[in-house]
């Protein structure tokens, strides 16, 4: 790289990283704040998720055993409604459990009571199937109570869930992934934005306000070099800030989803090396583009204050674009969407978090954003060269 650009980047970074106050507010604080807020939110949420004492558990039984009915009536922990359903409704009831409309299904084999009584003479050990949904607190609760009821019946010999692959009817990773996929793109975009907003307005409008940019512009430094140096150094800072926010998020999300913690789904297990590489590419390209756009807006302003005011509406636009991932439900697959600046980042991120990203789309998103950044750098260079913009009264 051109040595002028390197020297200018060094200077910007020197200024930034040697100033404890700026490092604190731009890098440490975002991550810390997010961590504290999300951990707190997680705590508040799991309190909210405590099951109401008056909750009536929806439990269905197929071919109920008399002993079971007696036992479950005698326990007092659950306030339940027990219905008996015919075997041909097993499938539809399982779906209701997955959809969290019902809590538990207990299936006894035909002639369970006789088989158990005649066990010594029969080679077949009866098997009871119990279906539940671990994503639902109530279902999980009902499952453990009914399990203990069945255990207490085990003076006679029978099996529970023998040969049943998936007694847990939770929609696997679905719900968690969907939440991640729809919320995170907006959060990440906003973190990057806020991370670079203060520094970029300061670095462009601030230099104009203090008259230091003119000192730079009378040196034989090309305007393009100044623009590229500004965008790269601000991009690095934005990335650090974004990384801090991301770390805060990364550490607090599992807490927020505390109830999922001991299940197979943990935040970390969603991500392999490939996902991290994709994420880094998209975040890098997006940071650079955002920084470039904020720099352009700032260069029209006469002071940092004015620049901040001018950039704020843009932040709202970015947040709205970020929100779009929550409405489209999952990532777009059509390549065309990955050419639209900002929207492409949101879609790419949504795809990564849903575990359904395609290398082609990520690449197109990254490359197109880098191209847009170069165009923006060119525009910025033109602005640095424009006396109307640099020396307006």
């Amino acid at each position, binding site marked *: 790289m051109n040595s002028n650009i390197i020297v200018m980047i060094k200077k910007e970074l020197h200024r930034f990283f040697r100033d404890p106050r700026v490092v604190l507010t731009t890098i440490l604080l975002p991550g810390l704040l997010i961590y504290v807020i999300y951990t707190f939110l997680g705590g508040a949420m799991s309190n909210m998720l405590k099951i109401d004492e008056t909750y009536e558990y929806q439990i269905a039984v197929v071919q109920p055993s008399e002993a079971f009915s007696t036992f479950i009536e005698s326990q007092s922990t659950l306030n339940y409604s027990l219905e008996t359903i015919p075997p041909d409704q097993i499938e539809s009831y399982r779906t209701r459990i997955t959809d969290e409309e019902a809590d538990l299904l207990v299936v006894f084999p035909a002639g369970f009571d006789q088989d158990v009584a005649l066990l010594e003479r029969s080679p077949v050990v009866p098997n009871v199937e119990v279906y539940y949904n671990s994503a639902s607190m109530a279902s999980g609760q009902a499952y453990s109570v009914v399990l203990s009821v069945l255990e207490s019946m085990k003076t006679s010999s029978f099996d529970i869930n023998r040969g049943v692959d998936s007694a847990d009817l939770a929609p696997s990773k679905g719900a968690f992934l969907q939440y991640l996929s729809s919320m995170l793109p907006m959060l990440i975009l906003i973190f990057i934005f806020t991370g670079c907003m203060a520094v970029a307005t300061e670095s462009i409008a601030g230099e104009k306000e203090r008259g230091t940019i003119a000192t730079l512009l009378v*040196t034989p430094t090309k305007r393009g070099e100044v623009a590229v140096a500004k965008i790269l150094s601000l991009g690095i800072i934005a990335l650090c800030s974004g990384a801090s926010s991301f770390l805060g998020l990364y550490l607090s999300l599992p807490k927020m989803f505390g109830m999922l913690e001991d299940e197979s789904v943990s935040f970390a297990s969603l991500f392999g090396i490939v996902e991290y590489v994709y994420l880094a590419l998209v975040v890098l390209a997006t940071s650079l583009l955002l920084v470039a756009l904020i720099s352009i807006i700032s260069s029209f302003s006469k002071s940092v204050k004015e620049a901040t005011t001018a950039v704020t509406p843009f932040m709202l636009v970015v947040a709205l674009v970020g929100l779009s991932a929550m409405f489209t439900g999952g990532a777009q697959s059509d390549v065309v969407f990955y050419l639209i600046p900002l929207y492409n980042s949101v879609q790419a991120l949504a795809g990564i978090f849903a575990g359904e990203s395609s290398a082609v789309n990520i690449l197109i998103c990254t490359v197109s954003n880098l191209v847009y950044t170069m165009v923006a750098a060119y525009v910025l260079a033109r602005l640095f060269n424009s*006396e109307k913009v640099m*020396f307006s*009264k």
Partner: protein
Amino acid sequence: MHEEILSVREIEKTFTLSAKQRKIEKTTLKKKVAVDKLSFTAHKGEVFGLLGPNGAGKTTTLRILSTLMTPDKGDAFIDNISVRSHPHEIRKKIGFLTSELKLEDFFTPNYLYDFFSHLHHVEPDIAQKRKAELFDHFGVSRFAEVKVANLSTGMKQKTSLVVAMAHAPDIVIFDEPTNGLDLLTAKSVTDFLLDLREQGKTIILSTHIFSLAEKVCDRIGIIIDGKMTACAPLAELTREASLETVFFNLYEKTAGEINE
């Protein structure tokens, strides 16, 4: 006479005034001719002073010479290089300074000097040698590692001067050198200018202060309302009356013309 190093030929610059600016300047006109067919020349090794009241167009003229602005019409040449067509070459030759031109508070004189040396592609050993000389000469050495924010106004100004000399420009363009400076600092800046002249540099400065013009300038151009009303060696201009009297006579004459 020395060779001609700067030649300004009929430059013109018109600004469109914003509503806010019209209010400040108490005018209803949308356009302001800041520089009006201005021409002058400067010779190698002399101090040329643009003298004029506020709003006369001095800053605009110097910004055109230092390539920060382009003239609407006309052109200026430094060492026969056009500011209009080869601004990049011009920037290698000049040092530009204004009193409102600030250095970034966060850095030390040492850092800033190295930074600007580098941007001017000065050879590292030459840069270090020159830095030591300049810092010593202007008493910046003691404060070389103090952040600009913590320097006194005088030391800040000296630092600006020293940094602007990092590439040893032959022509120094200086807008209102002593504006807003206290007496002592103003004195050291004036001494600095005389010093540069000793070294054979060409200096183009602007000012509205008669005493400064009289003290340091070899030649003076009196600029009023964007026009050059007189341009001659100081000695010639002040043969019959003081610079102040000459200026006010010219000013009344021009004002009279405008009112008619």
